[in-house]
């Protein structure tokens, strides 16, 4: 049975949790005009990598990435899987720490940070250990149904104060492509590369068609554009640049007389927290997958706490927001390396595999 819907909601939700926070400011800082260029560039990069990845996976029907790699040279397999493992754990550390800070700035200013970190890890861990991937996939549909109304409502109302003149000039003048060299543009790729590795782990648990993913990406593109353009349209580029989380700020300026709630920010934040926890549970499951299939099949009841603990310690070792940003910037090269090498390698061995089996069938 195909699980196309579940896979596309999983894909969309796990990305939505990452888009609305640091992504807008990274894009705004990477260029001073025509912000759609870096957004579309990043998106094209994302689609390209996803396409290569899915193409590679299709050569091995119903096998997941760990099985595919382990069947071949074990040494090479670990050369690929170990960085991937590090990458996923690193993602979890940085994003949990970052998100805890966001929650602290936005709503729970009195709560100690370690509690927030723990909260953002224990609940996803619980989701993973209870449901494994079947549960996570089904959960994505449930979360989608529950939160789509508030999120769409907030996104629609965030246009309230938009001044469309800020859209211009639409075409950049000379030197438009300089954003490619800016470290902030590199960092903005984080929102594109954070979650898509999951496709490699799915095939042996849930069948899906690549079409499901491409449909999902159609939902994501407007989200990327809105998260950057709403702050620019409301505040102007110069002002948006001053803010830490421009999109959240703009949502705070929305005034709705007939609504009994003063700050609609809360709706958005709570929905995004749900999406974010969902994303972390997915990450934990991927790490779990690599360990169970690649090293030893330990019961997930023990393995999940073992995975969470080092991530939590990692989170607690990051003292402040700036360090988190700096660490992200430093590790971006490594992250991009992993993100490019894994799909590329998969496509190559897939192609060789197909060629070989073709030759074999001819010989018979």
């Amino acid at each position, binding site marked *: 049975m195909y699980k196309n819907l579940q896979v596309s909601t999983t894909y969309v939700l796990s990305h939505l949790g990452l888009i609305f926070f640091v992504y807008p400011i990274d894009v705004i800082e990477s260029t*001073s005009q025509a912000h759609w260029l870096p957004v579309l560039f990043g998106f094209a990069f994302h689609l390209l990598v996803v396409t290569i990845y899915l193409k590679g996976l299709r050569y091995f029907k119903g096998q997941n990435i760990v099985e595919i790699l382990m069947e071949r040279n074990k040494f090479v397999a670990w050369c690929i899987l170990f960085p991937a493992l590090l990458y996923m754990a690193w993602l979890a550390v940085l994003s949990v720490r970052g998100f805890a800070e966001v929650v602290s700035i936005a709503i729970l200013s009195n709560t100690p940070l370690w509690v927030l970190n723990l909260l953002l890890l224990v609940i996803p861990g619980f989701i993973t250990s209870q449901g494994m991937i079947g549960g996570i996939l089904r959960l994505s549909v449930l979360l989608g149904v529950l939160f789509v109304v508030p999120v769409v409502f907030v996104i629609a109302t965030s246009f309230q104060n938009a001044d469309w003149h800020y859209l211009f*000039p639409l075409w950049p003048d000379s030197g438009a492509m300089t954003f490619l060299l800016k470290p902030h543009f590199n960092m903005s790729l984080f929102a594109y590369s954070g979650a898509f590795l999951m496709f490699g782990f799915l095939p042996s648990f849930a069948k899906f068609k690549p079409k499901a993913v491409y449909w999902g990406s159609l939902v994501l593109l407007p989200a990327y554009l809105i998260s950057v353009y709403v702050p620019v349209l409301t505040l102007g580029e110069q002002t948006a640049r001053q803010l830490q989380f421009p999109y959240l700020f703009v949502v*705070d*300026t929305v*005034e709705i*007389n007939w609504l009994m709630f003063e*700050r609609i920010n809360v709706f958005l934040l709570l929905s995004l927290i749900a999406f974010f926890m969902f994303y972390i549970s997915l990450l934990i499951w991927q790490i779990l997958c690599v360990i169970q299939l690649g090293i030893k099949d330990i019961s997930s009841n023990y393995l999940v706490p073992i995975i969470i603990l080092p991530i939590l310690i990692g989170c607690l070792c990051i003292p402040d927001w700036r360090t988190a940003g700096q660490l992200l910037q430093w590790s971006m090269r490594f992250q991009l390396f992993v993100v490019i090498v894994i799909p590329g390698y998969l496509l190559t061995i897939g192609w060789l595999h197909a060629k070989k089996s073709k030759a074999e069938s001819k010989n018979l």
Partner: protein
Amino acid sequence: MIRRILIGTFFLLMLSGCWDNKDINHRALPIAMGISFHQGEYKVYLDIPKVSVNNEGIDVVTANGDSISAAVNKISVNMESQVDLLHLKVIVVDEPFAKLGLEEITSNIIRSRHVSPKTMFVISDEPLDRFFTRINNETDGDGKEIYDFFQKDAGWNPEIAHTPVWKVFRSIHSYTNDVVVPIVKSGESTTIESMGSAILKNGRMVSRLNNEQTLFYNVFDGKSLEGKIEIMGHSTVQIVSSSIKNNGRFENNKPVLDSVLKLNVTILDTSGQTSIKDFQTKLKKLLDHEMDQIFQKMKRANADIFGIGQHFRNELPRTELAQWRSKYLPDARINLDIKTTVRNTGNLKLND
């Protein structure tokens, strides 16, 4: 199963979000804050409604400090409950402070996240001491007038400027946007009296508009709902709806803004014999004259309160746009075309 229930209950109890929470009866929620600045020291006034069954009015507490948060903190230390600025609606500053510049407190407000960016800035036309004592006079009102005065669903009128903090913040960093903020003082027969509005350029008060000019400013800005225009010695009309279309272009290297203002009005009162035509020309003349005056004032102050520069974003590259206020605004011109429709004349007929 039991283990799952146990874990679930554990989460429910531990994650209820009540960490270090202070109950609402232990919080003081000011609705207005006054800030004045004298010789390097801020004086902060907080308007805190007394929470009780029979609405006993309002407490005004004050403190001095090197910064606003230090002063607020001093108040919090000395009060029996914790000051929470979450529901602050109005920030009142006195005129000398506004002339000195509000950049710093604006960015501090935006930074803190305790104060909502929707809070309004208001300038007081009299010393804050006097203002706060007089508006909280116990014999008239419940002390929440300052709150209701600026609420769009309560006492706000189109003659009053409406500018939240985030717009002031935007104007400080923007090349092409300046703002107007309301000026008030304590009134004689009403609690508060509107005195027009101040033009803030980069967060500094540079000029002022009277009540009527503020209304025209709001009309031009698209916030004119139900505004009443008095045509001196002739009649009064009420604006039912308005729309404005702007188009920026360059003529001999000078920026020209073509504006078409469409007004839908109803007639409230007239004096003497008049006709709709007559009345339309008079209204047009009045608006032209008033707009011209505001425009002259604005040019003198070099502050782009109408956001005229916004319409030239396509014509000017960014480096030029950065010099909009100094290089282009002094030469700018508005071609205002006003089209009035008299929707109805009330219960009485009026000749064409």
